[in-house]
C-alpha cells in the first residue's frame, strides 16, 4: 500500500506530445487513477478531447426540447412574450411602475430576453446532474459538460426570442444606440453568471436534493431582485454600486441601454457584475471539480 499520495487524478505522465499526437501515429494515452486531494480547476486538454461529445449533447438538448410539440421553437418566443404581456398589464398599466419613459412592453421585453435565458438555463443546469445520473454513472466524460449543456443549448432559444425583440423594435420604432456593439459582452456576462451558478447548484443538488426543490422560488426571488419589471433608476444612488454585484442587474440595464438607447451604458453596474460573475464562475468550477469525484457515489 503506497502512502497517501499528494496527487491529482489523471496526471498525464508524459505531457503534451503524447496526447495530442497526429492522426498517423495514434497517441498512447497513459494516465493514473487515484484518490484526489484538494482543488483543481478545469482540465482544458480533456475538454478539447471531448469537444464532439459536448456538441452532440447540446444538439440533443436543443432537438429534444420541442419534439412532439405543435408550436415547436415558437415556444422560445411565447414564453417571454406572454410574460411581457402580463407584466405590461400588471406592472405597467395597473401598478404604474415607472419605465424610464420607455413603452412598457418593450421596456420589459428587453429585460425578459436575458432574464428568460438566465432563469431557464439556471433551472435546467441545477437539475442537470440529477437527470444525468443514468449517463454519468455508466461512462466517463468531463462531468463539467453536464451543467454546461443547458447553458449552451438555451442560447438557441435566446437567439430565437431575439428575433421577436427586433420585430417589436420595428413596431415601436425604436432605434438601437451605438452601444449595441457591446451586446456580445453582455451576453458573455450573462452566460458566465448562469454557468457559475449552474456549477454551484448542480453540484450541491446531487448531494442535497433540497436545492432542486428550492430552485423554483429562488429564481422567482432573483427575478424581482433584478431590474426586470422596474428600472434601476429606482435604486438610491449610494447603493447602486453594491447593487451592481448582482451580475444580472448590469446585464439587463445594459440590454436596455444598448437596444433602446434611452439611458447611457451602465458601466458601473457591468463592472461590478463582471467581478462577481468571475468570482462565481471560478468558485463554481472549483467546487464542481472538487465534488465531482463523489457524484457517482452519492447520486
Amino acid at each position: 500500500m503506497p502512502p497517501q499520495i499528494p496527487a491529482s487524478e489523471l496526471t498525464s505522465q508524459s505531457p503534451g506530445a503524447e496526447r495530442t499526437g497526429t492522426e498517423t501515429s495514434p497517441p498512447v494515452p497513459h494516465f493514473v487513477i487515484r484518490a484526489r486531494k484538494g482543488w483543481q480547476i478545469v482540465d482544458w486538454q480533456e475538454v478539447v478531447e471531448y469537444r464532439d461529445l459536448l456538441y452532440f449533447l447540446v444538439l440533443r438538448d436543443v432537438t429534444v426540447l420541442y419534439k412532439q410539440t405543435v408550436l415547436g421553437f415558437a415556444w422560445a418566443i411565447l414564453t417571454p412574450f406572454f410574460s411581457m404581456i402580463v407584466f405590461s398589464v400588471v406592472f405597467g398599466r395597473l401598478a404604474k411602475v415607472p419605465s424610464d419613459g420607455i413603452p412598457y412592453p418593450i421596456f420589459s421585453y428587453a429585460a425578459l430576453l436575458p432574464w428568460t435565458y438566465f432563469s431557464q438555463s439556471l433551472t435546467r443546469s441545477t437539475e442537470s446532474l440529477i437527470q444525468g445520473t443514468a449517463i454519468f454513472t455508466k461512462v466517463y466524460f468531463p462531468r463539467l459538460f453536464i451543467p454546461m449543456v443547458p447553458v449552451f443549448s438555451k442560447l438557441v432559444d435566446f437567439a430565437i426570442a431575439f428575433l421577436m425583440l427586433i420585430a417589436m423594435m420595428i413596431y415601436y420604432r425604436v432605434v438601437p444606440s451605438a452601444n449595441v456593439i457591446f451586446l456580445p459582452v453582455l451576453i458573455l456576462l450573462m452566460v458566465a453568471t448562469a454557468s457559475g451558478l449552474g456549477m454551484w447548484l448542480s453540484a450541491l443538488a446531487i448531494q442535497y436534493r433540497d436545492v432542486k426543490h428550492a430552485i423554483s422560488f429562488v429564481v422567482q426571488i432573483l427575478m424581482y431582485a433584478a431590474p426586470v419589471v422596474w428600472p434601476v433608476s429606482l435604486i438610491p444612488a449610494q447603493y447602486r454600486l453594491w447593487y451592481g454585484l448582482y451580475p444580472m442587474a448590469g446585464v439587463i440595464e445594459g440590454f436596455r441601454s444598448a437596444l433602446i438607447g434611452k439611458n447611457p451604458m451602465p458601466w458601473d453596474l457591468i463592472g461590478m457584475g463582471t467581478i462577481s460573475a468571475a468570482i462565481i464562475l471560478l468558485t463554481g468550477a472549483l467546487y464542481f471539480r472538487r465534488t465531482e469525484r463523489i457524484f457517482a457515489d452519492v447520486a
Partner: protein
Amino acid sequence: MSNSAAITVEGLSKLYRIGAAEQRHETLVGALTSFLKSPLQNYRNLRKLSQFDDVAQEDGGRKTEDRPSPETPPSDIIWALKDVSFEVKHGEVLGLIGRNGAGKSTLLKILARITEPSSGQVVMHGRVGSLLEVGTGFHPDLTGRENVYLNGTILGMKKREIDRRFDEIVAFSGIEKFIDTPVKRYSSGMRVRLAFSVAAHLEPEILLVDEVLAVGDADFQRKCLGKMDEVAKQGRTVLFVSHNMEAILNLCPTSYLLSGGEIEYHGPSDQAVNLYLRAFSRTEHAGAANVLYEADGPLAADQLTKISRLEILDHDCRPKEITRTWDDLVVRIHYAAKQDFEHGSFIVDLFDYKQERLVVFDSGTRIPIRTGRHCVDCRIPRLPLAAGEYFLGAGLAVSNAQWLWREANLATFQVQGKDVFALGRPPESRRMIFAAEHSWQEPCLGNTKNDTSG
C-alpha cells in the same frame, strides 16, 4: 512496472457509506420531535456520504499500529474493495467473477473513471473504452441516426470516426430502414441491437465490459459473445465481468475471483469458476465423504421444517463415497419438522455449473412429512450424468402449494468418469451432460426392404 502491462492496479481500496437506517417512531410526539430535529440529522447524514474522516486512521483496510484506532468502527461503512493489486498484460482477456457485492462492479467503475478510489492507484496504458451498459444516453425522441452519434461520442468516439463507420454500424444492427425513425418507436430488441452495434464498433485498446450480455434474447447474446470473441482475438486487452459462467469460460483464459472486496483467486478460468460455484454451496463440514450437507442445529423459531443432512448411499444403503456415471444410488434426506404435513413433498434438484437445472426429483404426495426427525430416500438407478461437478439443491414443500424450506445451492456433487459407452474415454461434462443409455446397430435387412418398398 513492466512495459507490457496495460493495467497496473496497486493497493486499490474503495469505501462506501451506506445511508444510516431510517428511524421509526411509535408515537406521534416522537415522530413530531424527530420531524423538527430531522433537518440537522439529515444534513449530517448526507454530508457524511462523501466524508470519511472517521476512518482516516485506517489505511486500505488495515489499521496502522502507531495510531489510536477509532473507539468504535463506524457500522455504516463498507469496504467495497480492500487493498486490491494486480496487473493485466497487453492483449490479455481477463474474467472477473464473484458474488453480488464482491466488488467486481466497483473495480470496473474505478477503472472506467466513474468513481474514484479511496486509496491506491491504477495506471492505464492505452485508450480505454468502457461498456457498462449498452445504449447509454439514448434518447427516445431522437432518431436512430442521432442516437448513434450521441451514444458513440458518449462512449468516447470522435465524430469523424463515427462518420467513417456509420454505414458499418447501421448494417451490423440490421435496422437500416428505421435509422431515421425516433428510437421510441423501435421495439426493445431493435433498440438493443442498435445500441450494441455502436458499442461493437468502439476501438479502444482496453475494453471494460460489465454484464452487458445480461440483456437481450439468446440470439442477441450469441451475437454479443461472437463479437467479444472477435475483439479478444484482435489482441485488445479486455476485462470482462459476468455472472454467465459459460461466457467467462469461453472468452477468458484466466480469471480473478473476487470475494468481499478482495482477490480470492487468480488463475485459469475453469478453476476460478469451480471455486466460485463451490463457494455458493455450503459444504463446509468435516463429515464423512458421502455426506454432502449437514446442519444439525435445532429448528429456528420461525421454521416449521428443515433439511438437516443429505447423504449418498448405494442401493444397499451403504455409504457411497464415490459416485460414477451409471451408478445406482440413493440420496437420503434427513429432515426435522415441527408438525405433520400430509401433502408434504421432497424435492431434489440437480444443476450444472452454469446454474442450469438439469433434473428435478419430486416425491409428489407419496410420502408425508412427519413431526420429529426422520429421513426419506430418493432412489436413482443408473445415474445418467457424465463425469464432472454438479450442484444439488433440495427442498421441502406442501405439494403444489408452498415451499416449507428451500435451498438452491446446498452441495456440490462429484461424478467420476466411467467408460460406460466403451469408447476408450469416459463421458465428461465438458462434452456432454447426459450419458443416456443407448445402443448402435445396423438395421436388419428385412426392415430396410420394407422401408424402401413401402
